């Protein structure tokens, strides 16, 4: 081409062509660079779909639009575009989350709360009618995983709105058959048809997951499903703002009543213990009194019995002896002893040791 020198023999052929000029040589070099760059780019292009799939991912390969294989983690070898198209997806064990999107507000559900301390209601909380003719607001986050990567790749563009709608339909169906208390603490007591309230609420969440999966599976029966499976639903039930304060009042009243009952029980216990102590005191006093009484009687009669035993056969003078032994002591306690002669009217006054000076 342009850069090739002609080596025809000088004697037989025309004179040799003059060497190419600098512009031609530059163009030739430029073309070579472009050629090698193109080769390099071609090599990159050829290997562009050969990649390493990480453990948390998986890949689906579509050849001319047709799914030819799914690849878990490892080395993926595929033809370059436009022959093969590689779609990278989260692995089957990865949990994907989807907060259920908001809906247009329903008229009649006054959003303004009369509780000044209430948190603002999230836009994503939607109202549902419960079986006991109440209204509960549900705010949900869906946790799902990819169960069929091919279906997921083909229909993922429409997946998220469909998930929102399927959840709402499931929630309408479930809420319509449950009471408000099955979703949140509304009455401050268990109302779970004989089961524990937490068990009932967990059962409601499980039922939501199961029914959502049933709806997704029903779509899969026609091979038109979305290739996902609900793993868990994080549900945040709330009361309508207008009613929330009243519900809180019930809980407050219940707690207050419990507090009053506890206080009364404490007072009652104190009263019982006081009564028990008083009873013990009374009984103790009585026993002491009885003992004192007996002891006094014993004391009072000890000397009598002693005299009686000591006197033996000389009982006749016992009273006189006792009288003489003790009359002095008795009269000695008196302030004064006035002795009167009944015949002469003379008086003898003796002052005892207890007499005060006059």
């Amino acid at each position, binding site marked *: *081409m342009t850069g090739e020198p*002609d080596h025809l023999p000088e004697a037989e052929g025309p004179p040799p062509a003059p060497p190419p000029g600098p512009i031609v040589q530059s163009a030739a070099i430029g073309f070579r660079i472009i050629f090698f760059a193109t080769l390099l780019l071609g090599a990159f292009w050829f290997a562009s779909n050969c990649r390493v799939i990480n453990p948390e991912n998986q890949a689906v390969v579509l050849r001319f*639009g*047709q*799914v030819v294989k799914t690849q878990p983690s490892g080395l993926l070898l595929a033809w370059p575009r436009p022959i093969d198209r590689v779609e990278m997806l989260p692995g089957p064990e990865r949990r994907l989350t989807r907060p259920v999107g908001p809906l247009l507000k329903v*008229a*009649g*559900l006054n959003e303004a709360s009369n509780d000044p301390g209430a948190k603002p209601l999230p836009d994503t909380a*939607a*109202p549902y009618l419960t*079986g006991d*003719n*109440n209204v509960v607001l549900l705010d949900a986050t869906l946790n799902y995983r990819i169960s069929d990567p091919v279906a997921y790749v*083909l*229909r993922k*563009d*429409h997946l998220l709105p469909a998930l929102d*709608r*399927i959840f*709402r*339909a499931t929630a*309408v*169906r479930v809420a*319509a*058959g449950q009471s408000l208390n099955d979703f949140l603490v509304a009455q401050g007591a268990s109302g779970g048809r004989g089961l524990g309230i937490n068990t009932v609420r967990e059962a409601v969440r499980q039922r939501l997951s199961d029914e959502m999966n049933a709806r997704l599976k*029903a779509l899969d029966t026609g091979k*038109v499903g979305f290739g996902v499976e609900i793993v868990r639903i994080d549900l945040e039930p709330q*009361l*309508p703002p*207008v*009613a929330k304060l*009243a519900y809180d*009042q019930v809980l*407050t009243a*219940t707690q207050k009543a419990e507090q*009053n009952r506890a206080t*009364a029980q404490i*007072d009652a*216990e104190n*009263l*019982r213990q006081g*009564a*028990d102590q008083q009873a013990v005191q009374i*009984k103790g006093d009585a026993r002491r009194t009885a003992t004192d009484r*007996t002891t*006094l009687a014993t004391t*009072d*009669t000890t*000397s*009598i019995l002693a005299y009686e035993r000591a006197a033996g056969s000389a009982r006749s003078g*016992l009273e006189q002896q*006792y*009288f003489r032994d*003790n*009359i*002095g002591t008795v009269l000695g306690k*008196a302030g*004064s002893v*006035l*002795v009167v002669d009944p015949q002469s009217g003379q008086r003898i006054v003796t002052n005892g040791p207890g007499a005060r000076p006059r």
Partner: protein
Amino acid sequence: MSAHDFSPEEDDDEPKGPRARIRMTVRTVVASLIVIIAVLVTCVVMVPADEAVVISRLGNPVRVITKPGLAFKWFYPIESTIPVKLQLQTSSTGLQDVGTRDNLRVLVQTYTAWRVPNDPEHILKYLRTLRNQPDEAAMQVRNFVSARMHTTASNFNFSDLVNPDPAAVHIDAFEQQLRGQVSPQLLQSYGIEVSQVGVERMTLPELTLAATVNRMAAEREIAAAQATAEGAKRAAQITSDAEVYATETVATARRQASQTIAGGEVAAARVYAGAYNANPGLYTTLRSLDTASKVMGPNTTVILRTDSAPFKVLSDGPSGAAPR
């Protein structure tokens, strides 16, 4: 710069050798291949999965390719392609005010999961009726379902839709009936297949809903008052029970104490009686002296006769010493 500068051997004035002829032939073949490949590329149709391609010849749809992969057609403008998406889609009706069989009004919003089925007949129908416009299709689906929702709802009582007994809730039947009504018509009219219908939203008219929420609040206020009263009642009951217990306990203790004291008195009396029986005279004397000793005090003045003991001895002397 002229062509002469770049390739002097191609000059018309120069004789063409065998190498030049070969080069010319190669170039011609390569150029022809490129042109042929270019033409072939325009004849190749790629059909992605979940899509169909309608081949139209001069505007007239002649065949539908539904199998994913590569297919062929005549080059443009003889034949052109129209891709039709067959993916499952969902669309909502918006809230519809419907009446139930028991003449109650309820607002219902449903979603419909629909798609164009994978068969040429329905694909062509979808193409002809809805111009291959998913938005137009969604609107038609919405209109169909909204219209049938009224008739379907009239077959159900409100208690079939909302009921405290889960077994009495027949929303599934409502959805099935609604789907049964719209599915054949949508397929026949627009080539749209309905896969699922669901009640996405169910609520009450504005005034009813506001009244419901207010009723909930009122019920809770009553419940709060009941809880307060119940608490006060239980507290009073507890206090009353404790007071009764305390009264009974103290009374019992007093009764037992009286019995104990009485027992003590009896025992004391028994002791006194024993002493009395041993020597009644001595007992009487001793007890009298004891009593007298107890009542004596510094302010006590005892008045005795001189002829009474012990002062008698003062006046009479020792017994028998002097005549009286």
